[in-house]
């Protein structure tokens, strides 16, 4: 990649934007059909009411809330990781950042839809928004559900800006390369960007501030999602460990989602020369670390519950260890630890993209199961045995789940059709040599000093 000229980088990375292949249309048709089916299932639910779902007393939260937590977790792939790598000035991040940031924005959008679907009457979602109403309906600001609204709103706003800022120079590049209606479109989108030193500096300053601000916001978002559960006195929910446990799980699933998306882009858009095996190796190492942290949290949480031996909590505990939910629990352990740990720990396997991608697929499946297992077993074993219940999803919920995954793919492909999926200008910065040779220093020599550089007292400016 380092031997490529700027013209070649432009050509390679603008090709997906400028050329539309048959593969693109096939993918659109396939994913669009699944999304259409999911929209159909949603409309069926709107028409018939939430009786078409599998939820029933005492399990009132199931697939929709699982999907909500799962997608908010996936959203941690992008902005958080991108911000950390940007602050650390990790140069290998350059081809990865935009792929990651896009995941955040779309995952948040998809995740944010699920609580609205879950309302049952989604057209009343605006009741969550504080506005003066003659019925005096006002959000309960002590509730974690209201906190969710603010946290997700802030994270989505921040992530959109974090994604959009560095897109501006690339949109200006596309503007210079297209004609007709697209020229007009990209002229508007590029906001009149030229690339003066002032504009570049403001862009970099803005990105730096955003990177610093967005990290605590990202951590707060999944912590607040965890508090949706932890603030309720429900067995195995009311736990102080839930905040960091959820954040760790979110980063874990997020990195896995990012690796899958990168492997997909690499193949479909022909980006083999930009998304290199070394990028998968580095992300694989991060994934390995998160795998161990996740295992530590799960063990810690389970051990504490088991040691306490409190009857209501143990009912939930045993239902996941050897009861109705045990097959899912052990599949989760298998997917989140038994499969990925050796794949990621053995260097020879981690150095293959296939190995890292297999581990990532297992983790994505395992993390969805984890979210389900946090929610449903606790609700179905809540304190009094006569109130125990069960849950089985219907075709409506399963179709919407599958559709949300297809929507992610569809949005991702559409985005890469309109915007270069790799930040071209950032890649160019990484492709030229370090330039510190031109930095000027001013040597101030005291009168009568022996500075070997300066010949006479006063100021001397020299190149180093």
């Amino acid at each position, binding site marked *: 990649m380092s031997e490529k000229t700027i013209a070649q980088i432009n050509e390679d990375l603008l090709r997906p934007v400028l050329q539309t292949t048959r593969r693109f249309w096939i993918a659109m048709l396939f994913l669009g059909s699944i999304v259409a089916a999911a929209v159909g299932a949603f409309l069926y639910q709107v028409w018939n009411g939430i009786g078409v779902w599998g939820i029933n007393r005492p399990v009132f939260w199931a697939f929709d809330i699982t999907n909500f937590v799962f997608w908010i977790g996936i959203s941690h792939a992008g902005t958080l990781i991108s911000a950390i790598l940007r602050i650390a000035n990790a140069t290998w991040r350059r081809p990865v950042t935009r792929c990651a940031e896009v995941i955040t924005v779309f995952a948040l959008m998809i995740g944010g839809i699920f609580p609205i679907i879950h309302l049952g009457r989604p057209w009343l979602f605006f009741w969550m928004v504080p506005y003066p109403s003659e019925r*005096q309906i006002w959000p309960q*600001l002590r509730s974690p559900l209201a906190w969710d609204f603010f946290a997700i709103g802030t994270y989505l706003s921040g992530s959109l*800006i974090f994604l959009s800022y560095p897109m501006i120079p690339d949109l200006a590049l596309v503007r210079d390369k297209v004609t007709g209606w697209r020229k007009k479109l990209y002229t508007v989108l590029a*906001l009149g960007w030229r690339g003066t030193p002032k504009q*570049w500096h403001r862009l970099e*300053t803005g990105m730096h501030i*955003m990177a610093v*601000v967005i990290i605590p916001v990202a951590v707060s978002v999944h912590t607040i999602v965890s508090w949706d559960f932890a603030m309720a006195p429900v067995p195995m929910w009311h736990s102080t460990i839930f905040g960091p446990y959820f954040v760790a799980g979110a980063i874990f699933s997020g990195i896995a989602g990012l690796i899958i998306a990168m492997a997909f882009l690499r193949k479909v858009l022909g980006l083999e020369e930009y998304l290199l095996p070394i990028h998968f190796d580095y992300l694989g190492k991060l994934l390995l670390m998160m795998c161990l942290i996740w295992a530590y949290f799960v063990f810690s949480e389970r051990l504490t519950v088991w040691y306490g031996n409190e009857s209501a909590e143990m009912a939930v505990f045993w239902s996941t260890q050897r009861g109705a939910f045990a097959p899912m629990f052990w599949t989760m352990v298998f997917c989140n630890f038994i499969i990925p740990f050796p794949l990621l720990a053995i260097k020879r396997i981690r150095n293959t993209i296939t190995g890292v991608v297999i581990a990532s697929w297992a983790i994505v499946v395992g993390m969805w199961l984890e979210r389900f297992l946090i929610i449903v077993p606790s609700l179905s074993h809540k304190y009094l045995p006569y109130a125990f219940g069960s849950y089985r999803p219907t075709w409506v919920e399963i179709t919407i789940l599958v559709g949300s995954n297809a929507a992610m793919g569809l949005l991702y492909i559409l985005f890469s059709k309109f915007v270069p999926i790799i930040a071209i200008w950032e890649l*160019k910065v990484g492709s030229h040599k370090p330039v510190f040779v*031109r930095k000027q220093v001013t040597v101030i020599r005291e009168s009568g000093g022996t500075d070997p550089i300066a010949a006479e007292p006063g100021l001397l400016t020299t190149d180093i």
Partner: protein
Amino acid sequence: MHVVYGLYPDPDSAQRAFDALRGGGEASGFDSRRIAVVSSEPFDGYEFFKKDHKTAIPWLAVLGGLAGGIAGFSFAAYTQAVYPIPTGGMPIVPFYADGVITFELTMLGAILTTLVMVLLTARLPNWRRRLYDPEVSDGKILVGLIDPPATSRAAVEQRLLEAGASQLKEFSG
């Protein structure tokens, strides 16, 4: 505004052009504020790229955050005071619970202030015709002099060419 400019293939030749226009401190040199530079990537470390680096955006972001935090806490506390509900002996205006809203709106305030200030100081959006050359997107670096005096016009052109520009162009707008 009238600009005479050259397009340079690499940052070293752009730096030479920048130095030549400044005249290396000679009396015939031009103030760096009159030297226009446009590039397709940032060139940190080069002197021609050091223009206009002073900014108060980080401090304004802090102020925006403070404003957001105050607004967030006031909003939550006012709501709880105006719509009081039974809290079972707990405070009507709870510090910990309102802290969440305060934190999120602090961050939102900082984010939105940064957005607005970056756009304002970078003068975006601005769709009017301004100094630009599409060759910049192919990696060329534009270096030129704004409103060159008629008396030294030939000398300016000579300096730009000697620094490595393949040809000179003009912009009026």
